[in-house]
């Protein structure tokens, strides 16, 4: 697995799929379910009266929920061509790097999401590392960056995720 393979992986950097729309709009029940799981009592998320008097004038979604709005439905499957990021992961699988773990997460928040908002998002492959020796085995770190916008086209936030695709013990 020499330089040519790494060049093939690097060709994915900067590739962005087509924009997708969140399956659900931002809504109070999903926000409340999130707060239940986290045990987050922040009144901006679930206390109508408090939120109405806040500078937002309404309930807002927890900013950390960003990625949740864009998760694919469990059923039926989304019909769209495979995203460059998925193609890159498949290429790594084919080369024997089957293992996958998330190693780094970063989120930036530009404006809040309100119930009724509908998120659209794009994501791109932003980096691939050369093969590295890790405690799990040799692998490549792959970083993907998501951009989230609301229905007015305003930037809501970004998230980057770095995963390690590794070959167990080798």
């Amino acid at each position: 697995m020499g330089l040519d393979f790494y060049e093939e992986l690097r060709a994915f950097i900067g590739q962005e799929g087509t924009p997708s729309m969140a399956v659900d709009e931002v809504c109070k029940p999903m926000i409340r379910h999130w707060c239940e799981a986290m045990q987050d009592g922040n009144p901006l998320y679930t206390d109508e009266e408090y939120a109405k008097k806040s500078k937002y004038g309404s309930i807002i979604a927890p900013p950390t929920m960003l990625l949740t709005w864009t998760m694919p439905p469990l059923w039926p499957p989304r019909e769209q061509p495979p995203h460059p990021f998925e193609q890159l992961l498949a290429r790594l699988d084919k080369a024997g790097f089957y293992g996958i773990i998330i190693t780094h997460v970063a989120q930036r928040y530009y404006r809040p999401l309100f119930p009724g908002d509908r998120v659209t998002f794009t994501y791109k492959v932003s980096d691939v590392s050369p093969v590295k020796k890790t405690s799990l085995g040799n692998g490549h770190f792959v970083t993907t960056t998501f951009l989230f916008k609301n229905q007015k086209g305003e930037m809501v936030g970004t998230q980057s995720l770095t995963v390690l695709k590794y070959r167990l013990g080798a």
Partner: protein
Amino acid sequence: MAWKSLYWEDVQEGQELPTVTREITVTTVIAGAIASRDFTPVHHDREFARSVGLKDIFLNNATICGLVGKYLTDWTGPEGELKEISFRIMTPCFPGDTMTMTGKVVRKYTEGQQHLVDVEYEFAVPQGRNCSGRGTIALPTRL
């Protein structure tokens, strides 16, 4: 319920955040995975997790994000506005683990109209560090 706000003036660089512990159960892991719409089997299916060599199901990255957000805004009060968070994930957090959350203010500064603090935090589990990272929060000011 009355909510207390932490003001920018009352924070010092080097100040420690309160230590918070949370018992992570099977329910915590699964509720977090489903609330974040993450149906990856390693976050809800014990048998599957064990079949791929893991000790058990483990907290997904979205739940860690949620717990980081809660840890930070529980400290600042609801007027603290998260600007960004980032963290490295190291050791998985399994059901039965006690998660111990600690943090420290590393920078206090202004940017335009915003009064900001940078915080470093670490979530520890018995087997090591689950994650450690940094966050930026805008705080209300008395000015």
